[in-house]
């Protein structure tokens, strides 16, 4: 049997990690905006409005949180892909991974789509039990 699902799962997890890194980036940018605001006040540069700094920070945190949530979903789906369970969820996770990191998400989608038969043996093994 080919190991397409294994590779796809790793790619999904990598995409998901990039998504979670967006939240780290958002927190860094929030810290950076506050630092720039204080720096401008201390060195008599044209001061930046506190409201604009707060608004920018809130926007970054919201966007970062949404992308991080998508990334966590991609990571969970990547784990399911590695275990070869729930093909639909695995594919949804790969699509989510495409949003967070396109170069890894696209190969993951292609590999999961073509590895559909790798997910089948578990379903076949449960089928006789449910029939009996």
């Amino acid at each position, binding site marked *: 049997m080919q190991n397409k699902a294994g590779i796809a799962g790793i790619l999904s997890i990598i995409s998901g990690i990039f998504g979670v890194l967006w939240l780290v980036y958002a927190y860094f940018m929030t810290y950076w905006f506050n630092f720039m605001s204080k720096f401008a006040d201390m060195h008599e540069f044209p001061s930046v409005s506190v409201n604009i700094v707060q608004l920018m920070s809130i926007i970054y945190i919201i966007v970062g949180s949404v992308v991080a949530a998508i990334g966590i979903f991609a990571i969970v789906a990547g784990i399911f892909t590695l275990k070869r369970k729930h093909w639909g969820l695995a*594919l949804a996770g790969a699509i989510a991974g*495409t949003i967070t990191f396109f170069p890894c998400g*696209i190969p993951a989608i*292609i590999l999961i*789509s*073509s590895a*559909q038969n790798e997910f089948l043996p578990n379903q076949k093994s449960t089928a006789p039990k449910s029939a009996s």
Partner: protein
Amino acid sequence: MPNYARTGGILTIISGAFSIFGVAMGGFYILMAEFMKGQANYQPVVGLFFTIMGVVFGLFSIMVGALAIIGGVFAVKRKHWAVAIAGAIAGAVLFFPCGIAGTILVSLGRAEFSALEGLQQSQTTG
């Protein structure tokens, strides 16, 4: 036999058609640069920047759109799976929802490509 490749191809062609918006955006940048020339306090560097942005954006959209449409046509004809999947990925760059669906369907329909090629080979040999 399921008809994944054909559906994927149509979705890819639709994504490729969205490149017209990219071309329009490029044209808008160039028009903006021309409009700025007549204004007071005109900075030539800014005008040049907008012109270059417009040309690059327009050419990129044309090339990616052409790849998506060619890939979509190949997917509909069930020929050259690699070109078809490249076109579907290009379609995902232009218009995400249709392009992703096209990528999934072209991937799922890979067997349809090889089945058709096998049929054609058997017809030529037989």
